[in-house]
């Protein structure tokens, strides 16, 4: 069986700097894979290559066996890979509901003329999109429903912005979800909620999920498999326990000896 997402000897260089080197990685259907690694290890860059923002220098990215290298980001998302951003990139001036609805552009078809005349297809799509938005926002309990629907995104709290980013990504109806540090900046209670949420996304929506996360409790709680990166190279892969205690991983985080640790800090 082919994996849902497959990175095949993926490399990316900016000028002389190799950000990713010969990375092999796969995510199966309905699987949660965590990517860990120190800051600057190239984790977010991997996301950017998968979603088409950067084009790899070498290697291939395949979604369900088909290469998606060279496709525009919007095309890739339409094919079924949605993402969130580490540095929150919501549509600040749009309401919560509109943020989610805007992500359905690729799955709707009404032309401007149909929309202006409110022809049947435009009306039907609008109803569907509306229902979808409410459904997706309902995933977060009371957090993003009710009066919040019509609030502009910029008034939301930090945690709610992170939730809205996930909701917006879900509205694209993805098969694979890429979450970039979903628990960053959250308090312990909220972090716990995120852990549960990611599990629910897999169980209830049947998604495959690739997560970048620094919080080891989250990683431990959700991962079927963990991949550790350092300097754009995969240094370990396997179960959480195996990776967390892997000497190369410990070294990447803590350094080889006290002097290196001091330099790294």
């Amino acid at each position, binding site marked *: 069986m082919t994996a849902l997402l497959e990175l095949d000897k993926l490399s990316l260089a900016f000028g002389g700097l190799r950000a990713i080197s010969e990375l092999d990685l796969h995510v199966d259907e309905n699987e949660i894979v965590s990517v860990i690694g120190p800051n600057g290890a190239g984790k977010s860059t991997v996301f950017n290559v998968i*979603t088409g*923002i950067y084009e790899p220098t070498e290697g291939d990215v395949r979604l369900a066996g088909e290469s998606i290298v060279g496709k*525009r*980001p*919007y*095309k890739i*998302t*339409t094919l079924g890979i*949605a*993402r969130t*951003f580490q540095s929150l*990139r*919501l*549509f*600040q*001036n*749009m309401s919560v509901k*509109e*943020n989610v*609805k*805007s*992500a*359905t*552009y*690729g*799955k*709707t078809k*009404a032309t*401007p003329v149909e*929309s*202006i*005349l*409110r022809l049947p297809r*435009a009306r039907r*799509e*609008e109803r569907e*999109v509306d229902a979808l938005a409410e459904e997706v926002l309902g995933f977060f309990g009371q957090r993003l429903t009710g*009066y919040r629907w019509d*609030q502009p995104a*910029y*008034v939301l*709290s*930090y*945690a709610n912005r992170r939730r809205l980013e996930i909701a*917006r*990504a879900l*509205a*694209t109806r993805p098969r694979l979800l890429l979450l970039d540090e979903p628990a960053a*900046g959250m*308090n312990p209670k909220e972090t716990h909620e995120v852990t549960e949420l990611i599990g629910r996304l897999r169980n209830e929506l049947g998604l495959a999920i690739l997560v970048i996360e620094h919080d080891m409790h989250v990683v431990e709680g959700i991962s079927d498999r963990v991949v550790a990166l350092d300097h754009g190279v995969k240094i370990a892969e396997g179960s959480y326990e195996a990776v967390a205690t892997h000497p190369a991983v410990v070294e990447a985080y803590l350094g080889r000896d006290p002097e290196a640790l001091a330099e790294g800090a």
Partner: protein
Amino acid sequence: MAQIGVDEWVAQSGGRRDQGTGWRKLLASAEDRVGWWPRLALVVFAGLIAGQLINDVNLQNVAFNGLLYAMLALGLNIAVGWAGLLDLGYIAFFGLGAYGFAVLSSSATGSGGNGGTHLPAIESVPVVVVVAGVVGVVIGLIALRLSGDYLAIVTLFVGQAFMEIVNNIDPGTLGGVNGLYSLDSFHSFGHQVTSPLGFYYLALVMTVALAAILHLLDTSRTGRAWRALRDDQLAASAMTIPVNKLKVMAFSFGAMVAALAGTVFAAQQNTVFPTNFTANILILIYACLVLGGVGSIAGAILGGLVVTIGEQLLSSPNDAGYLFYGLILITLVLRVRPWRYLAAVLAGVVAFGFAARGIVGAISSSAVAGGPGSGGWIGSAVKHYVIVPSSPATYGNILYIVLICALILIVRLHGIRRLLTVIPTVYIAACCWESRLIVNPSITTQIMIGAILIVTMAARPQGLLGTRRVELVDQ
């Protein structure tokens, strides 16, 4: 980190706005109660009543111009307000529409004034609009290879290129600098629009229809996508939105609206000249949009009307005073609080003026020998107030520079010092106005249009009817 209390504070902000005081609250609650369609109907109704009331041909033309600029601002809003693209070539499409109509529906292109093509408007207008749309797509595609800033320069060149082409191409086709004459009026199905009132109604229908269409578009998936890409292009493309396609669409839709406005303009004027499509007109349209509120349909219409009316007032020495002194008074009333200070400032302005004139008059009677430029009762009211020498040109120029320096100074000062500076500044403004500005109303108009852009952007970037936006500045 969640900030304590911020969530609640923000959640209540809507409530706090409703609890505002006085007319603001009334206005806000009235606005909430009335939906979109009733508001549009209200505009139509007001427009029809106005049409019945205005008998003067001049005023009918002014009303037509107001609606024309409203239409132009609506079109500009698509690219600038919704998609966030600074389109400086917009004027070329207005010109394209006008010249297109002139070529398709006039005697101008035939020999001896008898030939030419005389397509009815129902055929020529759609042809012109579609051509403009296609040209818009082509230019949009080129411009899109560039990031936002370069777009401005390429489109600015488009406007310049248009001027160069119509000025220099074979005068037999496009008339060169002399323009094209004797165009048809709008005619279709045996009916034609010829009277100024007829054109006013035509413009009213078109503006309202356009506003309705744009509202429907704004609330559709396309409108949402535009707003998304204006807020964050990268995130939009990661959310299935084909950014480039939508930008080209915005550009091209704007071009079509401009061309449509151009056809009506050409038919109403009966002529087209290259000078109708200069950068000055572009700035005027920008002023309409910015004043009304970038991104807002109602704002674009209001801006078009306000700027046209202001322009009209300025061109008459009797009425210009209303606008000028009225603006000063409104600014003072809105900005000087509490009312005790306001009263003091107003009294100070009056007293300062009479004192200054008294002193200067005592020293040299020729220094106050000139009369005010204003006519009407304003003229007689300020006659013994302002200092205008018998040959006021140089004096007025100096005052103008002093006035600008004083305004800059006011921006820098705060508190009581600012209030004290306001008093002589208002007086200088009045003297400068009476001695120089009102003498050259056309130049004064242009300066004021430029000032609208600068002042609105600094003081109220959302304009009269827009919503304030937040934007993450990413370098």
